[in-house]
């Protein structure tokens, strides 16, 4: 801050600044580990660019208010909202927008108290813990319960609003939730909506994106799909997408977990045989085909018939 200001005719190097911030490293990681999510990545890139340019402007002594970076992530289940929020903290830290770059992840329970006078200290404590980093409020729409007018959620929202305004330099608040519920939440809390500059919508994944996600997930756990299993998986995904309660990457993760179970069971049933390392890491077509979606056309744990009232 006390650094000497540059003269008006000085030249600065945006490229050098960019490289020094090591943001490209995080961005590359983001591109590598997160499949799809085009609008999200674009917005993150824009924010990064703004912060970098801002930093250069400050070198010349051109002042502007620090931009508000409170964000709202909406999207269907399993579209990567939490993952991106965690990554966001790292990016903002690299850019020097937040000082520590840690994430405090909370839900309604952590913010709202149980009796009169309990909520304010509880919310304040969470905010204090998040200072210098990112406060991530998952399922933020639960904070406001219109059906109960004595609900303490409103009090928590008011304290949050105040801190989002006055302690703008100290913390970044990221809300996340399902689109329709968040829209209703903002409708009843217009103050919250206007204090959040970035409303980012997470699109659903396409089948081919889900396939690459599946591969990434398996690689992380040191599994691989045999070529025929990969074929079976690409048949499985559209089938699963057409069934109710499809939650994008999360459903895929569950399906893969079940495939791992079946793989273990298959290996166990061939006990007489000696196994190689390849056997242990390969998921075969049969492990995918064993899914009840292929066998019975419905999900595990799904009721026999959906009763309509």
């Amino acid at each position, binding site marked *: 801050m006390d650094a000497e200001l540059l003269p008006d005719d000085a030249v600065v190097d945006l490229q050098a600044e960019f490289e020094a911030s090591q943001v490209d490293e995080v961005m590359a990681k983001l591109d590598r580990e997160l499949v799809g999510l085009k609008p999200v990545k674009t917005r993150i890139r824009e924010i990064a660019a703004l912060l970098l340019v801002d930093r250069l402007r400050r070198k010349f002594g051109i002042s502007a208010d620090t931009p508000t970076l409170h964000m709202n992530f909406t999207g269907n289940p399993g579209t990567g909202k939490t993952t991106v929020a965690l990554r966001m903290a790292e990016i903002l830290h690299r850019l020097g927008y937040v*000082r*520590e770059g*840690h994430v405090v992840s909370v839900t309604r329970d952590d913010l709202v108290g149980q009796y009169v006078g309990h909520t304010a*200290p509880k919310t304040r*404590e969470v*905010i*204090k*813990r998040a*200072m*210098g*980093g990112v406060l991530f409020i998952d399922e933020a729409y639960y904070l406001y319960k219109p059906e109960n007018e004595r609900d303490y959620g409103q009090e928590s929202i008011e304290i949050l609003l105040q801190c989002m305004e006055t*302690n703008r*330099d*100290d*913390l970044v608040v990221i809300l996340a939730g399902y689109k329709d519920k968040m829209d209703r939440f903002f409708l009843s809390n217009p103050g919250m909506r206007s204090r959040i500059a970035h409303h980012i919508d997470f699109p659903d994944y396409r089948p081919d994106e889900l396939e690459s996600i599946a591969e990434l997930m398996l690689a992380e756990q040191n599994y691989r799909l045999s070529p025929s299993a990969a074929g079976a998986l690409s048949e499985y995904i559209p089938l699963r997408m057409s069934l109710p309660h499809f939650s994008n990457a999360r459903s895929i993760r569950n399906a893969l977990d079940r495939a791992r179970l079946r793989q273990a069971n298959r290996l166990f049933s061939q006990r007489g045989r000696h196994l190689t390392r390849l056997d242990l890491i390969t998921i075969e077509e049969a492990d995918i085909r064993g899914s009840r979606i292929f066998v019975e056309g419905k999900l595990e744990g799904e009721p026999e018939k959906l009763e309509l009232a």
Partner: protein
Amino acid sequence: MMTNPGNKVTQGQFSFLPDLTDTQISAQIKYALKNHWAVSVEYTDDPHPRNTYWEMYGNPMFDLKDPAGILMEINNCRKAMPNMYVRVTAFDSTKGWEAPRMSFIVNRPPSEPGFRLVRQERDGRSQGYSIIPYATDRPEGERS
């Protein structure tokens, strides 16, 4: 007092120095947080050196990463108790320590009247000495 020209109460760290600025306080707290000590804010109107246990302002703050939250509490406490002593204490819970590792005053009353020396005659012409802060002359609650 000749040795203490400002007539300031000297307790804890940095008390012979001019009052710390907020930036300096932040830097000290940052050091405490770096060592994972729990920082708390305390206040009192009785500056007697044997008055060890001050009132706590709010709860001790655990798991903080950044001094901004504590500075916010300090400023709240200063606003609520402008005429009292406010100090910041950093407690180390590591086994074997379990004690405050840092403690320094961050707010003082506008005037610090100092201490009265009381002499007591004892058996065999021996003399006992004690000190009483002028600040506690009036009963608690009526001190400004």
